[in-house]
């Protein structure tokens, strides 16, 4: 498989970036980390804007940087969306959008103005100048401009930070399409967990210029040690399911997860296609017996207790690792723990109180 290998060390007074990356050069790699952790610096090194001394970078057998070689940015065929929009003030929106497009060989162009302008909702603005745009509009132009270069590698620095959820819900599928259709690998910086969940294939967690964790989304999200970085609420299982059938009468879609069934509101996805769902550890409650009485809690998974987490004397909840074919995480209260008297290996019913479908337009904030 194609790899993106990189090794950079940059020294600023008061900050050192020092990291070695070994990523699949396909799909979306999300770079995640607190403000000032070095995300932008990393993108600058990857793009060739900054040259880390004695750095190394190789993508799909092409060496972009080593002791002797340094391919300048304009020859790397990358698309770069900066954190600030950086539009050219002397060009109107259309000219801005086409700047890189015109500098791409016609044979290599895989996107065109009309489509990009339409998806990014820029059609009415094409003749306007950047200074007459709103913040979010400018950001969208910057995204469009980078996409229109039909890059071989796309680097995006918080591209959707100033956009509302409806726009995000329209743009994210478009970004996914670029990944799937044109096989463009993307390195994507964001602070938004929703963007992470919808886009991520590989996740890189940075802190103070170092790589804290790197791996698939399942690994990273069920890593209890990353609670701080990822956020309490987001910890949990990310499961790959496939669409089993649609229940048109009740407006439900049934998903197959390792032979068990999950019911979710009707999703507009063909049967057989896969769907990623996110089950927050806080949304999993446990019971020893199935529930009596009619209830709208429709999703109950049979599982086994794998491991009861350490109860921090000052904490009020505890993480229970379950095995339902794939690891599932449940965070329950002290009181529940006392009631349940859990033992490793014990069969248990996991009530899934909420399932987050991670696909187009869903779950955006």
């Amino acid at each position, binding site marked *: 498989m194609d790899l993106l290998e990189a090794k950079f060390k940059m020294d600023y007074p008061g900050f050192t970036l020092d990291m070695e990356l070994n990523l699949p050069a396909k799909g979306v790699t999300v770079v995640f980390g607190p403000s000032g952790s070095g995300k932008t610096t990393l993108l600058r090194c990857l793009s060739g804007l900054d040259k880390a001394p004695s750095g190394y970078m190789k993508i799909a057998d092409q060496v972009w940087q080593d002791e002797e070689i340094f391919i300048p*940015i*304009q020859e790397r065929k990358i698309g770069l969306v900066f954190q600030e929009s950086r539009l050219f*003030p002397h060009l109107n929106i259309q000219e801005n959008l086409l700047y*890189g497009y015109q500098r791409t060989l016609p044979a290599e162009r895989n996107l065109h103005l009309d489509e990009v302008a339409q998806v990014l909702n820029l059609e009415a603005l094409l003749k306007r100048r950047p200074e007459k745009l709103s913040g979010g509009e400018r950001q969208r132009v910057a995204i469009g401009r980078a996409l229109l270069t039909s890059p071989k590698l796309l680097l995006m620095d918080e591209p959707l930070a100033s956009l509302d959820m409806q726009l995000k819900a329209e743009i994210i599928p478009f970004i996914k399409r670029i990944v799937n259709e044109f096989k463009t690998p993307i390195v994507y910086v964001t602070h938004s967990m929703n963007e992470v969940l919808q886009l991520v294939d590989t996740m890189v967690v940075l802190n103070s210029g170092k790589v804290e964790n790197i791996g698939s989304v399942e690994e990273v999200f069920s890593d209890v040690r990353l609670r701080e970085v990822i956020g309490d609420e987001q910890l949990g299982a990310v499961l790959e399911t496939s669409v089993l059938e649609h229940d048109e009468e009740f407006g439900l879609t049934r998903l197959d997860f390792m032979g068990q069934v999950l019911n979710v509101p009707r999703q507009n996805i063909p049967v057989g296609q896969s769907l990623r769902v996110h089950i927050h550890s806080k949304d999993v409650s446990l019971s020893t017996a199935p529930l009596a009485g009619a209830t709208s809690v429709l999703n109950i998974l049979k599982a086994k207790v794998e491991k009861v987490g350490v109860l921090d004397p000052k904490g009020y909840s505890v993480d229970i690792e379950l095995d339902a074919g794939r690891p599932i995480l449940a965070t329950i209260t002290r009181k529940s723990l006392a009631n349940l008297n859990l033992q490793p290996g014990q069969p248990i019913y996991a009530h899934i109180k909420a399932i987050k479908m991670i696909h187009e337009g869903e779950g955006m904030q």
Partner: protein
Amino acid sequence: MDFSLMDAEPIWLSLQLAGVTVMILLALGTPVAWWLAQTRSRFRVVVEAMVALPLVLPPTVLGFYLLILLGPHGWVGGPVKALTGSALSFSFTGLVCASTLYSLPFVVQPLHSAFETIGKVPMETAQSLGASRWDAFFSVITPLARRGYLTAMVLGFAHTLGEFGVVLMVGGNIPGKTKVISIEIYDRVEVLEYTQAHILSAGLLIFSFLVLLMVYSINRRLPVQVT
């Protein structure tokens, strides 16, 4: 009328001289200013300081040194004479050389200032979109430096038009060849032909005013903000 015929030539010559000089200055000043704005070399300040020096000498004196330099025994004029048969003094080419040197600071300084204010962000951005440095320079930096170029051109053009100390010395006031309008007006004042001096001055002023008005109006109509 004979009068008008007599006067047309110096005007035409002046315009040619100013035009050619400004063009050379822009071609020459742009790389110098760009280098100054980009380099971290210690020589930068030296070059910066040197660029302004031609201004410090009185024009006639500068002209005198140029006369020596461009003349048949000069470091520049000598080789040129050996090659082409005639030195640079008393020729239109010589005038262009002299004017170029003398007006250099008026072009380099505003451009340098413009390039420095633009900073490195637009260049970075253009390169990230696949533009080579040359391409980016002409498609992004030049338009962003428009005000700098305007200043450079106006100062360069006007100064070349008005200058006569250097030009008189190096050019030798040869009608049709090196006798420019500024010398013509100067001569009129010298010989007390005030009326004609007034007419020529007024003409030159009005003409320049109209040209400048046009230039600034076009500039104004172009989009303004370059932040």
